[in-house]
């Protein structure tokens, strides 16, 4: 065998070893999740979530904001929200019909309860009873708002930590 050939083979073998060793060593950093989805445990919340509590509805008809009556979002406790609905130009929307819906998109399940708007508090405020989150992580809460013959939806993203 020529010396030149031996050198090429050796280089190839050593490079392979380095790549394999490097991958093993780097495992803790890249995480096993890229190797097999089964090994990833819980998914982290997607990056770039807009978790703001005030947003414009999908078709731009309403300006909607929510707040939890107890301040923070409690885990495993049924609680009440107040939803505030305004028109795009800032006029409170009264007498709206609002449906509540939501879930954990990464887990493929809905809300554990069946929350409902139980009172029109006036001045664009609505009481939403029966909210409960029973898992940590990324949740979506969607409101479908019908007022003055117009209907529009808004989906809030939130992360329970």
């Amino acid at each position, binding site marked *: 065998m020529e010396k030149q050939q031996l*050198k090429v083979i*050796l*280089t190839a073998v*050593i490079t392979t070893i*380095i790549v394999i*060793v*490097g991958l093993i*060593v*780097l495992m*803790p*950093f890249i995480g096993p999740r890229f190797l*097999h989805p*089964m*090994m*990833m*445990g*819980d998914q982290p919340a997607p990056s770039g979530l807009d978790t703001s509590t005030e947003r414009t509805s999908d078709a731009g008809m309403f300006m909607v904001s929510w707040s939890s009556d107890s301040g923070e979002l409690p*885990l*495993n406790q*049924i609680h*009440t929200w107040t939803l505030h609905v305004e028109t795009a130009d800032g006029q409170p929307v009264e007498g709206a019909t609002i449906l509540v819906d939501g879930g954990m998109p990464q*887990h493929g*399940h*809905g*809300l*554990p*309860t*069946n*929350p*409902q708007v139980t009172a029109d508090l006036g001045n664009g405020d609505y009481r939403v*009873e*029966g909210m*409960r989150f*029973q*898992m*940590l992580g990324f949740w979506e809460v969607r409101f479908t708002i019908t007022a003055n013959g117009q209907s529009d939806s808004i989906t809030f993203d939130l992360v329970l*930590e």
Partner: protein
Amino acid sequence: MKRILPLIGGILLIAAAIGVWSVTRSAAWSEEEKSTLSGLWIGSLPALQPDPSNAYADDTQAAEFGHELFFDTRFSSTGEVSCATCHLPELMFTDGESLAQGVGTTDRKTMTIIGTAYSPWQFWDGRKDSQWAQALAPLESAVEHGGTRAQYVHLISEFYREEYEAIFGPLPDFSDPERFPISAGPVDDPAARAAWEAMTQADRDAVTQVFVNMGKAIAAYERLIMPGPARFDLYVDALLKDDKPAMKTALTEDEVAGLRLFIGKANCIQCHNGPLFTNNDFHNTGVPTAQNLPLDDGRASGVILVLADEFNCLSPWSDAGDSDCAELRFVTSAGEQLAAAFKPPTLRNVAETAPYMHAGQFATLEDVLAHYNHPPVSPIGHNELDPLGLTPREMAQIVAFLGALSGGVDAPPELLQAP
């Protein structure tokens, strides 16, 4: 060749350095993990909220009365079964059996009562929505206490009149056997049921009121039964104070590794979260049907039962106003996710409460981990679990960690034995 050798050497050195760094790094908890751990810590258990459905929930006398009822075997068809027959204080208020044994055999495993004051739903299927409503069900079950409410109010009249009246006011006169048969109630036994149906509505209500008060007294007792701090709690306590020696004393390396898996790769905290290690919701985890038992659809039937329950939060026997009954009013009452869904039990003291699952299907925690690692197709509905890909060593570490959740009962010692 000579140029390659130092290059390889260098790379290996860097690799070794990174390896060492990553190992030491994994021993520390990130801020996010710390926050998760503090959420599981017993110190995060909020103060117990009042139970609006039970006006006697925090009444000391009622708790004493409930304590006596809890251990009194006269409240059964055979004179041999009390609440404590299946809820043994020394076994963390469980019984070590796959299926509860009263005067007969039930089709579910006994759940602990420790910390259930925090749960909006009782039983594996949540068919009761308060501790007091729960306490009444076994009393009239044909396979548990096997008795009837009329039988029980006669016993109250005979043995507990003074105590009862001191708490709840005058006891009605149940002495007329024509109006108040020895045994009568809305139970499976045809004779007792016929006797119940023959009574006037007013007489039935008089009996039921006393029966309900028995449940409320038992609940007042059960509200005092809380989990004690476990080694896990000492660990988190030390972690939050950054006291490394105390952390080392509290948990072994394997237990810490198990904890890391519990909140990470194994994702147990999806359902076993909060300081009681349960989200009090209902989940289908594909647990196989127990031998010789019919298919159990869990919450799907449980929710129908609780909505129709004569003792639920919205019932006339509850002391709650409608606005207090949010859990019941906004309950999810239909959907595939309810099929064969069961309540995740608390994991506090779990190592002491074998066997496991709603009909004691698994004898050991190792069996439970093996099930979760390779979740089977559910007998009905959809199994929510995904395979975990845990190694045998990792499963052993999680089992080790679960052992660190044993902290016993936090209650006055006199409540943990017969009065």
